[in-house]
């Protein structure tokens, strides 16, 4: 079986687990919609487009965090990661399979979040959709690596946000810039570059995270 085959098998497993347990996506949906409702009432009616877009990105970031906290729950609780890392497949396939699963959960949350944002704040343009799509790659790539790292530690609920939030600040900068300025192309390119750099770094370092 090829590397891609391993990735697909692992990603399919994560989607199947979520379909059966429904532990993560409903919580993400509820969280992102609730957050947007809170922001809608908290923000003054004459708030700038940048402020409105900024709050959307804050909501998306914390929704991603919610999904990532649960990303390795099954593997951690049942120590399944031991069984997976002993398999003769490339260990980065475990990371990429999980990235695909996390991205699918994020997309599911955003399918609801973006129309809700359009309803409460302002219309959603192609720039925002493109920025969110690019941000998903970076959030999932970096977040999955950090979630695996945190899963091995004791204070994992604390460790993941502490590691994740500083590393995804560039995504917020790129996302807000792409959706609230006159030059979205520059910021979308920045997001693409972030994705490429951090995906390669996460891919290459995953093996060292899941082994001693």
């Amino acid at each position: 079986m090829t590397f891609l085959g391993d990735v697909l098998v692992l990603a399919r497993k994560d989607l199947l687990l979520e379909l059966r347990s429904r532990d993560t996506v409903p919580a993400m949906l509820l969280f992102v919609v609730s957050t947007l409702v809170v922001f809608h009432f908290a923000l003054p009616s004459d708030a700038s487009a940048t402020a409105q877009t900024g709050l959307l990105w804050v909501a998306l970031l914390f929704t991603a965090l919610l999904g990532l906290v649960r990303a390795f729950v099954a593997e951690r609780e049942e120590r399944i990661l031991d069984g997976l890392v002993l398999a003769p497949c490339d260990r980065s396939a475990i990371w990429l399979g999980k990235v695909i699963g996390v991205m699918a959960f994020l997309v599911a949350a955003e399918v609801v979040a973006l129309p809700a944002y359009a309803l409460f704040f302002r219309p959603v343009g192609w720039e925002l959709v493109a920025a969110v799509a690019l941000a998903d790659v970076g959030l999932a790539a970096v977040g999955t690596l950090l979630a695996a790292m945190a899963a091995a530690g004791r204070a994992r609920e604390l460790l993941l946000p502490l590691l994740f939030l500083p590393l995804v600040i560039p995504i917020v900068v790129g996302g807000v810039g792409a959706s609230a300025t006159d030059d979205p192309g520059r910021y979308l390119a920045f997001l693409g570059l972030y994705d490429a750099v951090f995906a390669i770094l996460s891919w290459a370092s995953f093996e060292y995270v899941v082994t001693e």
Partner: protein
Amino acid sequence: MITARGLGRDFGTKRVLRDIDFEVPRGGFLLVTGPNGSGKSTLLSLCAGLLVPTSGELAVEAERGEIGYLAHEPLLYRELTALENLDLYGRLYRVPERRERIGMLLERFGLWEARRERVGSLSRGTAQRLALCRALLHGPRLLLFDEPYSGLDDAAARLLDDELGSLAGERTFVVATHAPQRVESLATAALSLA
């Protein structure tokens, strides 16, 4: 196949294993005994390559895919069925004629009827039998079993006796157990941890 010299492992300030020496030749059967907390599980994790020794040397002549590891936990997804779990491991461990092999193991361990049940709904003993299927699925050369009889009823324990008996000599075993009498006759060496 496994050589340990002055092997030690610490977790923070706690020393779990200290100055352990043993050798298991190819086809050998090392029986590991000791009270709770003596480091039996840690020793197996070290042999599997899941942990790195803090001191000493450990050489294991087996690649990742050649190790069958049975831990305290069954290493199975609770939300997947028995069949789905074995199929996942079969794919990742490159098991040839996967479906036939899975079917044969499920039959042998009396799990065919439970193959479509989710692992989370299985009893402790049934999950342990499934974990044994998982550990044996890819025909490993080195088998690292941590309390393999845990949760098994008499019939399942006898089944495991037969399985170990048929594989002993052909495969290399390291078995940690609180029930050494079941495998004493197969053991070629013993290690007692304090």
